[in-house]
């Protein structure tokens, strides 16, 4: 089968449900899925935040300090560190009054080279068409 693309689409804010966090941890698990796959197979995930889902990518989340729970910010940074693509919908940021300076733009503090991509909804729609399977959260 070769490489299968998976698009994880997060449509809702963090902390009301566990599911936005699980979108990230499931996508990250693509790194270790080889043990269950045939030689040469792989999965290539992209996590895209759309609608109110962009609130997951607001920076400076203090979830660990205040509730002892890993923040979605931290999961996004871990994703960038393993070169997993993180997309955030620009139109939705603008609608909610969020600027790039308010968002997790990179994980340079962890040594990651990949940066968050701020994309238009049209880019996400195009990726929905190209991807093997869709996973909405």
């Amino acid at each position, binding site marked *: 089968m070769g490489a299968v693309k998976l698009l994880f689409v997060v449509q809702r804010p963090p902390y009301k449900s566990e599911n936005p966090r699980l979108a990230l941890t499931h996508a990250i698990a693509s790194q270790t899925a080889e043990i269950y796959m045939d030689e040469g197979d792989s999965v290539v995930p992209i996590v895209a935040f759309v*609608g109110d889902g962009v609130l997951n990518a607001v920076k400076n989340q203090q979830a660990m300090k205040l509730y002892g729970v890993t923040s979605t910010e931290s999961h996004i940074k871990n994703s960038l560190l393993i070169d997993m693509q993180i997309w955030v919908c620009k139109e939705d940021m603008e609608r909610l009054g969020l600027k790039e300076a308010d968002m997790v733009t990179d994980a340079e503090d962890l040594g990651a080279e990949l940066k968050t991509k701020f994309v238009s909804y049209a880019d996400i729609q195009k990726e929905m068409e190209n991807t093997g399977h869709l996973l*909405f959260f």
Partner: protein
Amino acid sequence: MKLAVFLSDWRRTEDTYERLKADKLGVILVGNGIYHAVIKENGKESPILSKAGASFYVLSDDLETRGFTAANVNSKVKVIGYGDVVDLIMNDYEKTAWL
């Protein structure tokens, strides 16, 4: 793409549905999504049903669980069973999106 979208909520908390595009689009109303097929709020049919070019389906089990029958269903929407849902997923569409 040929996409089967599942809607399971009455009051929706996403706006993905309005933006989604597909060459062939099927909308399957399940769970509380069935209210879109039967309720006319303030006399108007659900805006869900105005998506251009889409085919609409409602799961009869979920309809009847909530006290409605095929007689209550908007004429745009086809009443189907679990077996039909399987056929739509496996034969008629290539991808699914549970919003």
